[in-house]
């Protein structure tokens, strides 16, 4: 089961026609279930575009992409796929400023049929596991950058996803804070046995992963 490919991509092409850009230029990639991989490359190389394809936030123009058994080239709404399979973490935490830490973590659960009590309980557990158990009723504006990113990690985990997609999660943090976040992600990967795909332009960050995929100009170079 653990050797099964959770991501299987062949000849994937994504163009931004108006900009005249080929963001993904024939990507071939397989990622095993439970793997921790990093995608490294300079800015503009297509890392975020690839991550968004895997998370079904956008659709490719050509090729094939299968994630958790779902064909993402189909023409349909993938919101329920994202809700069940994917947990996103962005460079900016993207929390809702007027909601408490706990409420922010519960947001993805509003799309499920979880009860109010279940939501509160789950958010509380997760916030404790990212060492924010005592901050769950704070609004994000009262918290540090690292604390906000930890809330975002808890939010990504709330619906028990099979894949965590983290796009430059330490990009807005200083290196000390960044290290804490990376360590937290590594622990979560091990404890939850979740597939973790980490996008970064920094080599030392990429090196935390089991495998590094390098990108350049929309192609995988190694």
């Amino acid at each position, binding site marked *: 089961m653990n050797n099964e490919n959770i991501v299987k991509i062949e000849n994937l092409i994504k163009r931004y026609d108006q900009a005249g850009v080929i963001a993904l230029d024939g990507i071939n990639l397989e990622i095993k279930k439970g793997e921790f991989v990093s995608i490294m490359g300079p800015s503009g190389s297509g890392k975020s575009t690839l991550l968004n394809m895997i998370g079904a936030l956008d659709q490719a123009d050509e090729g094939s992409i299968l994630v958790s058994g779902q064909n993402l080239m189909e023409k349909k709404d993938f*919101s*329920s796929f994202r809700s069940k399979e994917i947990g996103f973490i962005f460079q900016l935490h993207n929390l809702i400023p007027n909601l408490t830490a706990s409420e922010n973590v519960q*947001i993805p659960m509003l799309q499920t049929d979880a009860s109010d009590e279940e939501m509160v309980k789950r958010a509380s557990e997760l916030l404790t596991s990212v060492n924010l158990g005592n901050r769950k009723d704070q609004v994000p504006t009262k918290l540090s950058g690292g604390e906000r990113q930890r809330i975002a990690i808890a939010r990504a985990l709330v619906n028990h996803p099979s894949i965590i997609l983290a796009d430059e999660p330490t990009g807005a943090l200083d290196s000390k804070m960044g290290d804490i976040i990376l360590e937290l992600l590594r622990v979560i990967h091990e404890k939850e046995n979740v597939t973790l795909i980490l996008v970064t332009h920094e080599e030392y960050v990429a090196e935390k992963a089991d495998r590094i995929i390098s990108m350049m100009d929309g192609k995988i170079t190694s």
Partner: protein
Amino acid sequence: MKFRSLIIKNIFRNKSRSILAIIGIAIGAAAILGLGLVTDGLAASTQQALTAGAADFTVLPSSFGGHGSGGGFGGGGGFGGSSAFNGSSGASFVSAGQTIDQSTLNSIQQMPGVETAAGVLRSATEINGTSQPLTLLGIDGQDLSLDDVQVTNGTAFTNSTQIILGTTAATGLNKTIGDEIGIDNQTFTVVGIYETGDYMSDRGAIISLSTLQNLTNTTGVSQILVKASNGTSPTSLSSQITQTYTNLTTSTSLSGFNRENNGIQTIESGSWAITLLVLLVAGVMVVATMMKSVSDRTREIGVLKAVGWNKRRILLLIIGESMILASIATVIGLIIGVGAVEALVNSHILHGIQLAFSVNLVLEAVGVALFLGIVGGIYPAYRASRLAPTEALRYE
């Protein structure tokens, strides 16, 4: 957290913007309610004035008003009767020389489409012991309202020895209820004081028709007050009468009737125009507010999509927000609307209008505000639900 708590929290997130939207919708609701109260009130007041009371038109002899038709005036001397006097008889009476006879009155009363036809005899006299002229009217007690007569003090007359005085006459003669008045060789007891709102009529006095007929030695009446039954057009009834009785003519208060009716229509269409305009402005305010609210949250909506929210949930969020805004605004609007109209009425700017509060009107205002909330929210919500998540997340 419940979905509805999120909606409510979002509303209070940008207070000044929410307040702006609330004001917009509240003005809409207030205007609908306020204008509705005033126009419905006007219509009700006018309708009441038209239907309760006054006759639709008056039937008169054709030559009525022709000068000198009935011969010279008798010993009564000058008088200021408005119109109803001609001819003469007796020593102290100026009475109808030309009258409509009883059989004509009876047959008009039998005409289909006639609800009431009341004979009125008018004469001028003076009160014994004074030289003051007095307009004396003979009309049956139950028909008083047809001539716009309202007894404000005391009662109407019930027998041939009782009289009621117009307010001006009562003041001028210094007579009040219980006092006695001598006319010709008869003594009358004042049993009531009346008002018509018409200056000339309030200077007169009224006794029963048969009593005045006996006093003046006449059998007919000088005019007939006709009220058409419901569903009969007063205009066609009046022309039917003049066609049947060529010696009669009708003097209508119909022109007044129509004028007032047009007045209501003008007010109603004017208030509709204002209502539409207000709705338009309020609608634009809601749309603008929600559009701004959505565009400010573009990135956030991208995140909601990334964490698995579907289009329907995002639609519900935005429409929910605008519905809650609209509901708050409706309550405020209703209070403002009722308050403003009450204030106007109390300050006598809109004097004489009865406010017609009705459940319908309130429901209308509530409906309009909620409609504004939904419609104003739909387009922004649709836009939000259609946002491409990658675009939204790139947006700074």
